[in-house]
């Protein structure tokens, strides 16, 4: 059994492996050198685990590539795995999210992209189809790009139903109950401090995660505010009370323990650094009622930040937690965020981190 971390950076992809129950890690790379890797996933449902990467050549545009041999060779679809239909007049700008669906839908992979679009692949990521229901949504022309770009950055398919949750900055949270045909905004209770009053949609939601025990319970790290919903997003309430700050980008939930989630607070919108320069992971065991911080193995004097996709959990027991920083460090915890070890330093800025246990 091997544990694998895929680390997408501004200038390439690195893979880290552990064969000793996540105690030590061996770094392998760079792969896809000099290409921005803003989205990565490890599809462990396949007999040969597939690493999918959404890359951006500096000059030559975005594309999706994949490797079925852990980075030794890479493939891409001749005409592009993600390609806007001609009638849209649009062109792919960036792949923000690659999300394998459940084991029950073994060839389905979702992609969230810029411009604001959701895509579904039924062949493991070799080709994607635009989800027209969201593309044709009457709100779409009024979604704002936020600071990072006009993108669907979060895609959460429910493993047991046809529900799909997406989030974007700055459009907010949208939910489909029928696999992507019809969509409705679900943002009530989420603040939008950059607008004069709370809107139906348009919030700058940075990341959403679903609780392990209840698909109706979700967590959101907002552009100012950390929230929970217990009714599938129809109403959100603040759970930021026990945190040193309510600003940040990622939020991660445990895939196996209900009520458990992690955030990495930054001081504020206008001060996007860890409080007092101390990089800390904060964990809740009670769905956000209380939080405790982890310091062991994480640095002081760290005036960096962790981007929305550079934080993840694996599917092992106990759950592993992984984060990458904009100053090129990667930290791993094999004990659910109690203690961390350093996996990598001095990489380019880390944009995305994903981890999985593979055969």
């Amino acid at each position, binding site marked *: 059994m091997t544990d694998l971390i895929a680390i997408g950076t501004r200038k390439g992809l690195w893979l880290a492996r552990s064969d000793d129950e996540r105690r030590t890690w061996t770094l392998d790379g760079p792969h896809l050198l000099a290409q921005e890797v803003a989205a990565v996933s490890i599809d462990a449902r396949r007999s040969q685990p597939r690493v999918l990467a959404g890359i951006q050549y500096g000059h030559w545009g975005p594309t999706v590539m994949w490797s079925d041999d852990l980075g030794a060779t890479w493939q891409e679809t001749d005409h592009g795995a993600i390609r806007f239909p001609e009638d849209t007049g649009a*062109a792919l700008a960036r792949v923000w999210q690659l999300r394998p669906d459940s084991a029950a839908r073994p060839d389905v992979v979702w992609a969230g992209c810029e411009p604001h679009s959701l895509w579904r692949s039924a062949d493991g990521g070799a080709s994607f189809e635009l989800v027209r229901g969201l593309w044709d949504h009457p709100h779409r022309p009024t979604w704002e790009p936020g600071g990072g770009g006009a993108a669907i950055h979060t895609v959460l398919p429910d493993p047991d139903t046809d529900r799909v949750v997406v989030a974007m900055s700055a459009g907010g949270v949208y939910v489909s109950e029928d696999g992507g045909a019809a969509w409705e905004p679900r943002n009530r209770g989420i603040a939008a401090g950059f607008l004069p009053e709370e809107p139906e949609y348009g919030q700058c939601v940075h990341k959403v995660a679903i609780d392990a025990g209840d698909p109706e319970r979700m967590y959101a790290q907002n552009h100012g505010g950390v929230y929970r919903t217990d009714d599938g997003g129809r109403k959100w309430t603040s759970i930021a009370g026990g945190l040193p700050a309510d600003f940040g980008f990622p939020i991660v939930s445990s895939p196996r323990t209900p009520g458990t989630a992690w955030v990495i607070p930054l001081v504020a919108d206008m001060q996007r650094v860890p409080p007092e320069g101390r990089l800390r992971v904060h964990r809740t065991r009670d769905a956000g009622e209380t939080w405790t911080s982890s310091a062991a193995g994480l640095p002081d004097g760290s005036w960096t930040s962790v981007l929305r996709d550079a934080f993840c959990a694996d599917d092992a027991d106990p759950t592993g937690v992984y984060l990458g920083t904009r100053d090129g460090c990667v930290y791993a915890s094999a004990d659910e965020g109690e203690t961390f070890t350093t996996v990598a330093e001095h990489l380019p800025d880390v944009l995305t981190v994903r981890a999985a246990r593979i055969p």
Partner: protein
Amino acid sequence: MTVQVVLPGVLADLADGRRELEVDAGGGTLADLFDTLAGQHPLLGRRIRDEAGQLRRFVNVYVDGDDVRYEQGLATVLRDGTQVHVLPSIAGG
């Protein structure tokens, strides 16, 4: 009508390892040329233009030494023996 296409080294792998290609320009515009090129080498075609058919922002194309952004863009008319340079612009970090 045949024109000569000169590629940067980093794109040569997508054209069977060649940096200089003799290509039938079809209808006679730069867009026609790139349509032909994309038909022969789809990955190369995607590196130069997006799926909406537009030149990628940081790709520069020169027709007989002139930057097509200051000419007629993809509608620039080619003639037999024209030389088309595809070059990456100064960008990135």
